[in-house]
């Protein structure tokens, strides 16, 4: 509750500040200057095109692996209390997920495709 209001206030203040800054200063460039920078070249298409993101299988691996964080945070809170049991269970969980990483590494996911 407290967290939510304060975060919203901080976001609103920063947005206002940046908007004010963004609108200040000298005027806009004229039309011929409105080309994206391309090291002297002239772009012949929009930059917003289909783009082959070369590491896409890494991102899929990432979202599956990242789920383990959800389980790890509550685990960290009770680790000292539960002791060896917590250690074993999380060790098993991480070992299972590590198999996935090793497999992905063997399949060359961490190279750009």
């Amino acid at each position, binding site marked *: 509750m407290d967290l939510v209001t304060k975060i919203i206030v901080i976001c609103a203040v920063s947005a206002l500040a940046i908007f004010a800054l963004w609108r200040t200063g000298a005027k806009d460039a004229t039309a011929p200057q409105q080309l994206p920078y391309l090291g002297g070249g002239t772009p012949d298409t929009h930059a917003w095109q289909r783009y082959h993101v070369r590491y896409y299988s890494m991102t899929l691996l990432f979202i599956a692996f990242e789920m383990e964080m959800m389980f790890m945070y*509550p685990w960290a809170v009770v680790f000292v209390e539960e002791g060896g*049991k917590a250690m074993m269970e999380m060790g098993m*969980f991480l070992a299972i997920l590590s198999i996935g990483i090793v497999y*992905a590494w063997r399949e060359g996911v961490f190279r750009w495709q």
Partner: protein
Amino acid sequence: MGLTDLLFFALSAVAIVSGWRVFATDSMVRASFLLLLSFVAVGLIIVMLAAPYIGVATVFMMAVEMMVMALFMVMFMMNPAGLNPMMMVHQHRFSIAAGVLAFAGLTAAILFTSFPENSVDPSTPVVHDLGIELLGPSMLIFETAGVTLLATMIGSVILSSRSGRFGMADQGSKPPGLEPDGEPAGRQPEQGGGHHHH
């Protein structure tokens, strides 16, 4: 109406409006960031509902998932990102009807059900309880989730990775030979890679 209610209605409005704009905006990358906004609003509502961990973690998880979503939006983009109007829908009327019907049906169900009143005490150590639950009674659920995630990782690698150990996926994968440059070990894939049924 207190500040809590005001905040709740504002956040709900953000969640619903941005959820609707996801399917009304032209730019597909904007659409995924709008979905992220919807998730963030829901996460903050969850924080207000006395579940700080789940709420903040929703924001955390959804930020990265929507980032990946945006990348895939770029890879399968339908039009150059909002420069042209985009309306790629099928069975439109049916879908609107289904959506409205689902909403109406669920709302009716909510309004006509009497729920037991048993609110969570704000002083409950919810994160701690969750940890005990994970390690104790729900240990099997926790470990099963691990195996499920492993299956997901392997499955997504197999399905999406273009170059595997045995060469490119679209060239028909060939296992390595038993001796250098020899015949491939094991069963060879059929020429042309299986059935072509058009």
